């Protein structure tokens, strides 16, 4: 689809808005529908749209495989790290109450970082699954 001018322009125009919408879903998640999982999927969808229009190699130059794979681990570490932070601040594991000056703010801060971790892992796992399916039969080692 690289030669289709309309698609190329629209895809390029779309991508920043999709990413912005992902951020909205991410940070509005505690007030309305949404959250880390949904935002992660939307981020991945933006990159997948790019990959479909401009080809997988172009998308891989944009988001290299090494970054995708690291992000999968980093997201989990952020989530688990929030749990450890609760431990270090004197609470139980995954204790958000102790993360800020009062329990309500603590809960908010805890869920904020947990959702960030979820978004990072979900988006990278979605990309990885897409890349693995899309590259079947093309990679020399498959």
């Amino acid at each position: 689809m690289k030669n289709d001018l309309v698609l190329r322009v629209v895809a390029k125009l779309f991508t920043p808005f999709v990413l912005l919408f992902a951020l909205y879903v991410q940070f509005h998640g505690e007030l309305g529908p949404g959250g880390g999982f949904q935002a992660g999927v939307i981020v991945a969808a933006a990159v997948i749209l790019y990959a479909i229009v401009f080809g997988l190699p172009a998308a891989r130059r944009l988001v290299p495989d090494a970054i995708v794979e690291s992000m999968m681990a980093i997201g989990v570490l952020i989530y688990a790290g929030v749990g450890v932070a609760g431990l270090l601040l004197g609470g139980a594991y995954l204790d958000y109450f102790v993360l800020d000056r009062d329990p309500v703010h603590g809960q908010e801060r805890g869920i904020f970082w947990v959702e960030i971790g979820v978004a990072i892992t979900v988006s990278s796992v979605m990309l990885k699954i897409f890349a693995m399916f899309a590259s079947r039969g093309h990679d020399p080692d498959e």
Partner: protein
Amino acid sequence: MLDHLPALQVVVPLMSAPIIVLLRRPGAAWLISTLASFVAFAIAVALALRVAETGTVSYAMGSWPPPWGIEYRVDALSAFMLVLVAGVAALVMPYARRSVAAEVAEHQAYLFYAMYCLCVAGLLGMTITGDLFNVFVFLEISSLSTYVLIALGRGRRALLAAFQYLIVGTIGATFYVIGIGLLYLVTGSLNFADVAQRLAGIGELRPVLAALAFITVGLGLKLALFPLHQWLPNAYAFAPSVVTTFLAATATKVSVYVLVRFYFLVFAPSQALEGVPVGGVLIALSAAAIVAMSLVAVFQPDLKRMFAYSSVAQIGYVTLGLGIANEAALTGSLAHLVNHGVTKSALFLLVGGIVLRGGDASFASLAGLGQRMPWTSFGIGVAGLSLIGVPATAGFTSKWYLIAGAAEQGSWWIVALVVAGSLIAVAYVWRFVEAAYLAQPPAGAAAGEPPLSMRASEAVAVALCVVLGLVTAFNIGFARRAVGLLLGGAG
């Protein structure tokens, strides 16, 4: 920090997995997962000592008190299982370095160790949690990582075995979650102790019975209860040796443990089990497992498959004790979880050594193994005695209690069955002895023992087969205390 040991028990292996993925180096991956499994073992021992001293330890995740939050609960029964799972996880790690390097492609080795850490975390989580749904989550973590670990085995048949297990395992997990859904519907709670308490006052028993059926079949698939064991032989035969060892010694055992919790601590206090022949069904299936699977094991062409079928039969002894359900039989059952776990890990570690040197473990390639690999052959002989249940080995003590339990109930045919099962075990262990010691090695056959690091793990496992038969403080002592908890809850 000591108060947080229940959380750290799961968190340490769980967090090791993403760190391994970040580092991407096989050497570092091995080091981290070794450290994680030894730390987990130390935590499990510390928890077991604390439980022995001060009684049940309860930990509120995120400081939400049970039954609202997720409770981690270490009692006499779960402490026992934690030591087994973490102990086997630590036992196989020194062995894993050379074995995995030989059996798993180098660019996948770090993923192997990450999956291994996740699997350990999942099994430990299933054991330690006091929450029905949390069990499901950890069941899925351990199952998904297990599918990948099996698929990393050499050859395309490993992929097929993993896929087969994936289908069956998913059905099992789905049945389990339907079961706990029904329980939640009836009781409005997901905490084991709370559900048990609320069930006692429930008049409408039909959904509870349905829950019992779904949970029994779901966990029966995961623990390879005959005739739901079809996935097991292929999965064990084609997985990498380390995985076979770890799964045989822990994965099915943890599912048995969850089933025990349900039967004796959730369903038994309510009237749900009255008039339902759960014990009878379990005894019948276990009897079929012991006889049929032992006989099938005798005719396998390959050592790994033979011991895989023998595992199904040995699980039969465990469920047999659950069916009889008196004090002695339950003690035998729980002790057999450990005894069989240790025996099978010794056997699969040794068979892994044969595969490393000879390429496969078919009986044709075993001829004259006693001369070519004297240590390995001797080890299989000793662990084989424990598998049969010869006095002064681990396998004897648990079978003794099983027989005592059956005799106490006057079920002499069960006594005969256990003895018959052991005699068939003699037949299949003899096949190995015959091939290894009585046949001449073919000219030019590969010789030499596996490397020292692998032999260290093998030696510890084989030694445990004997030590646990002579010093019964751990297996029988702990099993006794756990049975006290189980039957105390019923009364």
